[in-house]
């Protein structure tokens, strides 16, 4: 089959590899219909996530058709059209039983790597480095899905593939961001980053009762999407001082909840940005926490900071004094998709949210490298490049 493989920092190549096989009883093989790029892939490509190996197949946000199931699979059958959660949860461990699937105790075969780096190992993720299990990713014609009964969700009749795809990762991540933001009626929520996850976080914040959502980015096309499709008020941080703007837009209170949908490769115009870039370049810190600092400074006293932008390692100049003295609640994590996906498919079916607008480019697997370059450089108003192996 064809598969998009990582071959080195910022280098991808479409290769011919063998087809995946059932390796464990709970596995299924999915024929991939759509597989999306994700901002978190850029951290892998840019070399900020160690334990990538040359030849690894990347990609984790996908859907397709069940073509084979292992003997332990009970709920799925051949021919089912499914959207698959990008993070693997066994469904049986204490964490999965408590709906915290991204903390799964059993789905990561290489626990020792994260145990050294983080103290404990978290769940496996498709196509997301060997620290997160080393599972072959979805930018391929076929993919093996372990714990298939837990991670595959049948797409309801009447939904197109384009509508359902982002229920794999971007929508549950955005939704979990809003869920962790502890939104109460009348709340004002600020969302940093208007990529796929940020846009979904805006819409989810409204679903969960936010009165106003203010979105922050610098790319006009994304701010337009946030405004027109997701109905947010917008701030371009290239034009205005975000701290001043947020304070004045909220009567001096600051947003009740602040969502970081950017993560470790944040961009900004302040002096701290160049300081962080320099430290990251010489590997004195792995992550640039510009947005994280901003959320803490902007958040109202006693408010909530919710982090779904991905961080990988160590950060510097963390405003702990502000966080502590303002008594902020900080919640964060990789998304627990299995908890949210059925509900999100319902929202899409009812028409509450239609994430199709984020699918700006549909390309073939052969164009994988170019697709990522375009996505990375945010050219041609790109929000999400989606690969369709059938093209």
């Amino acid at each position: 089959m064809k598969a998009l493989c990582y071959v080195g920092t910022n280098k991808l190549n479409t290769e011919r590899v063998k087809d995946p096989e059932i390796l464990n009883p709970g596995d299924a093989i999915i024929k991939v219909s759509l597989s999306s790029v994700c901002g978190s892939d850029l951290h892998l490509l840019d070399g900020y996530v160690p334990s990538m190996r040359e030849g690894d197949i990347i990609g984790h946000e996908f859907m397709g058709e069940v073509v084979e199931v292992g003997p332990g699979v009970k709920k799925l059958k051949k021919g089912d059209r499914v959207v698959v959660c990008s993070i693997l949860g066994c469904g049986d461990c204490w964490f999965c039983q408590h709906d915290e699937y991204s903390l799964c105790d059993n789905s990561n075969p290489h626990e020792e790597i994260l145990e050294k780096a983080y103290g404990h190992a978290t769940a496996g993720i498709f196509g997301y480095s060997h620290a997160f299990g080393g599972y072959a990713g979805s930018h391929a014609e076929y993919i093996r899905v372990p714990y298939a009964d837990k991670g595959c969700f049948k797409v309801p009749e009447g939904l197109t593939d384009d509508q359902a795809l982002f229920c794999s990762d971007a929508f549950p991540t955005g939704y979990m961001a809003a869920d962790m933001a502890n939104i109460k009626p009348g709340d004002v929520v600020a969302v940093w980053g208007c990529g796929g996850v940020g846009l979904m976080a805006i819409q989810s914040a409204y679903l969960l009762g936010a009165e106003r959502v203010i979105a922050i980015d610098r790319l006009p096309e994304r701010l337009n999407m946030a405004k027109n499709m997701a109905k947010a008020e917008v701030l371009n941080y290239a034009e205005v001082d975000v701290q001043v703007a947020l304070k004045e837009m909220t009567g001096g209170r600051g947003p009740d909840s602040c969502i970081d949908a950017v993560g470790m490769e944040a961009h900004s115009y302040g002096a701290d940005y160049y300081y962080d870039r320099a430290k990251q370049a010489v590997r004195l810190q792995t992550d640039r926490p510009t947005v994280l600092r901003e959320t803490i400074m902007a958040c109202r006293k006693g408010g909530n900071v919710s982090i779904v932008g991905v961080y990988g390692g160590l950060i510097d100049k963390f405003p702990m004094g502000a966080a502590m003295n303002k008594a902020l609640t900080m919640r964060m994590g990789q998304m627990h998709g299995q908890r949210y996906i059925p509900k999100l498919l319902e929202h899409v079916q009812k028409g509450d949210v239609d994430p199709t607008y984020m699918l700006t480019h549909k390309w073939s697997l052969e164009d994988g490298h170019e697709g990522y370059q375009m996505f990375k450089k945010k050219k041609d108003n790109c929000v999400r490049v989606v690969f369709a192996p059938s093209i």
Partner: protein
Amino acid sequence: MTEIKANKLSDFTKDDLHLEPEITGSSHINVGTTERIVSVAAGAALLYLGFKKFSITNVLLGITGASFVHRGLTGHCGVNDMIGRNTASREGVPVVVKKSVTIGKPREEVYSYWRKLENLPNFMKHITHVEPLDAGGKRYHWQMEVPKLGNKFDWEAEIVEETANERILYRTYNGSDVSQSGEITFRDAPGGRGTELHATIKYYAPEGYVGGGVAKMLNPAIESVVHEDMRRFKHLMETGEIPTIEGQPSGRENKNY
């Protein structure tokens, strides 16, 4: 009032195993220090002579030299073993491994799977075979393969004490090259989280002092093997399978990256 001494405050001790391994086989040190220094020096001299010029005599000299060096470095001498001679005053230093894992299954279920030791190769990566040697189910023959080292080890071990669903205490015997003792305990985890499995293993490495030194360096690796095996046990008990990516496709099939 009890006097509190430094380092005695903690409720955790790594080496709380009260059963010492029976030191046998090449783990045993039977050459004294002075004799070992002389052995290495003499062996080195013989090796030097042996390599100076090629002849049958020189090759024999070289081989003798090598065995002297080995005897000196390891502190173990096969000839001493045969003739029952021992010039050493102490043994090497044991290595202790302690690891635990919580398994979301009732204690009885966890214990009974483990206690049927023939099951252990199902999840212990390097153990290829565990076979009972007596009808009472106390003595077992173990076989281990470490493909990376190209080595096979085997040993016999005996369950010295056991309490059903709580504890297994074991020790190797019978001239084993891997002298070890260990305790496996099974406790209820708090809050209905299942079973805490605790393992404490103490071993003397093969080849005496040198083996001991190597074992110390290798200890993190051995700890991680023990830990990995315990986690694989958890995976198997909780989900009925052990996660793997062995056999999945990658771009590495085509090229030598």
